[in-house]
């Protein structure tokens, strides 16, 4: 076989291999959930003319209370209930790192959860926890106490 023919065959073989590999790669990724990049195919949603969306965000009023707390209020009279949420900067990230809580430590691991449990069941003012829960339950109010990494909150939803 002539040297030039051999080279020609080598080129053909390399090209065929590249095409096969490309096809193989395409097959592997063909089940991706999105249509392939550059894929030109008709979509069931072709031809839709969607109207513009109109939305005016609610007006939020910000005030500073004398104690330093910031108060945000937004009015909405469409349903007869009020949601009051108190956010406190804090959260589990503010708890001291380390193993078991040491005596006298006020912010060791678990201290936030202990505080939240106390808030939830420890009552308020002269009322015991059970009495408060009963009273809130009787009026259909919901009290939620939650925490995240950087905050904890107390939320009251009431008619």
């Amino acid at each position, binding site marked *: 076989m002539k040297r030039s023919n051999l080279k020609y065959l080598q080129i053909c073989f390399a090209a065929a291999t590249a095409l096969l590999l490309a096809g193989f790669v395409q097959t592997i990724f063909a089940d991706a959930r999105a249509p392939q990049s550059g894929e030109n195919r008709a979509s069931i949603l072709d031809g839709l003319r969607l109207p513009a969306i109109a939305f005016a965000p609610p007006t939020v009023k910000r005030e500073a209370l004398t104690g330093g707390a910031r108060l945000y209020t937004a009015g909405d009279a469409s349903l007869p209930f009020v949601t009051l949420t108190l956010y406190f900067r804090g959260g589990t990230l503010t708890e001291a790192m380390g193993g078991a809580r040491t005596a006298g430590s006020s912010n060791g691991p678990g201290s936030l959860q202990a505080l939240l449990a106390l808030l*939830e069941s420890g009552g308020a003012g002269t009322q015991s926890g059970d009495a408060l829960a009963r009273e809130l339950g009787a009026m259909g109010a919901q009290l939620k106490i939650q925490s995240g990494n950087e905050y904890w909150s107390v939320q009251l939803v009431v008619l």
Partner: protein
Amino acid sequence: MFASRLLHETPRRLQAALLGLAMIPLAAGATLHAQTPANDSQDSSIGDTTAGNLDEVFTGLESKIRRVTLPNGLRLIMMKQDYAPTIACYMKFKAGSSDETDASSGIAHMLEHMLFKGTPRVGTRDFGRERKYLEMAGRFAEKMDAARRELGAAKAAGDEAAAKAAAERASFYAKQLRIIQSQVRPLVIEEEDSYLYSLHGQRGYNAYTSADFTNYQIELPANRLEVWARLESDRMQNSVLRSFYTERNVVTEERRMRVENNPRRQLFEKFIGEVYGDHPYGRPVIGPMASIEFLNHNQAFEFYRRYYAPNNAVIALVGDVDFEQAEALVRKYFGDMQPRAIPKTPAPEVERRPVRVVLRQKGSPTLGLAWFKPPVPDVHDLNLDLLSDILAGGQETRLYQRLVTREQLAVNVGAYSGYPGERYTNLFFVEVTPRPGTDEATMDRIAKIVQEELDRVVRDGVTAAELTRVRNKQRADFIYRLRANGFVADLLTNNEQHKGAYRDLFRYSQRMESVQPADIQESAREFLRAEHRMTAILLPPPPEESSKKLEESPTAGEQQQ
């Protein structure tokens, strides 16, 4: 009712926690004071704060609704709530596990999975080429399943030669099926529906199947309603159920995860099977493993053609919806569908008889107690729904105080009225989570205490304060959740399908107001008798049995009974 009615019709991802949702969460670090029970004639100082003026609220809500029935029977309920420029779109078919047969148990749920697999226009690069592969896959799967059946029969008969031959055939056809599946793969665009909806800002794209219904749901920006109409009308008419046999494996895995590996779910599945027997409610929604493994494309397609008809569906669009435009869209995309005769599923009368199911498996001990009761709209259903909250809807309630606080036999207790569905006679259900280490005798003692409390209701009734508390709680919980468009859409379609009238949703408050303590007492007397009580118990295996089994096999302890 408003919240508890949802418990048996929760989205697919929540179904695993079905009965668990009825439980009261035990507050972290809750103090267990010995308290005077709330039912001891304590008059609430609050009183019925929510009754009168809320009637106007509910009337106002009704006025924000338009209901339309298309000539083909499709019902459309639209509700205007313009807090945000979004719309919740719910489509509910009266097609659930109670419409199946024993041979097709699990097909309603399987079909729900399959309807996310596309149509000739969604999920494929070339349906013309794909179709022949789908047909071939169906033929090989049929032969594979036939061989698997023969294998099972041969094994049962102890015929080793026949079993070997059947196993070889099953293996051969399974390989052929895999080859076809790999060949068709390049033609398939998986989850294209989800991708398209995501391009348009979807939230909560999901579905769920219950004993009574199958529901498809999504929330979209308000100006994308036509995206929903185009995709859902296509799904409702043209689904091709592609990748059926791959998805069948997904569903068997789902069952392994949710049921086989969950002793509590196993207990209640077995219990409901015993309680209902041949009744449509006796079948688990997901289906038994033996049935799922042999479900086929034809069964799914037949169920689809039978029940996914416009006259068997209700659509709710709730949110920033323009009634005229939305109705025009629904007429344009769904109006041409042809109605079909929907077969009614006959249900035999339930048999009131003693049932006691004891499952011994590792896991937290659980006690379930159940009594048959009538479904909505029977007046006893409403009375018993209120009673379930009086008994266990909070920490100040009768059962919680008795079992958790005073006698300290349990860590939690919940009560729920209306399981497993609302189409037929259903159950009043009490579930107790006893303290760890509880034995069967203590389980019986707890069951006796629950019955004592029910007998006390029969003897002395409930107090006005208890009834007021529950009414206030239910009304308030309902109002709070009305901001969630999806919640409202789900309830509207539920009420329309169950009662044929979405309006009942807003009249529940008035109906609740008319209930008197004596009505609840009468319903308890009629339906919650000791002789009609049915019991489900989950306990750990006895220690000697566990150790013996462990010696025999490292995994043997998982399936003891």
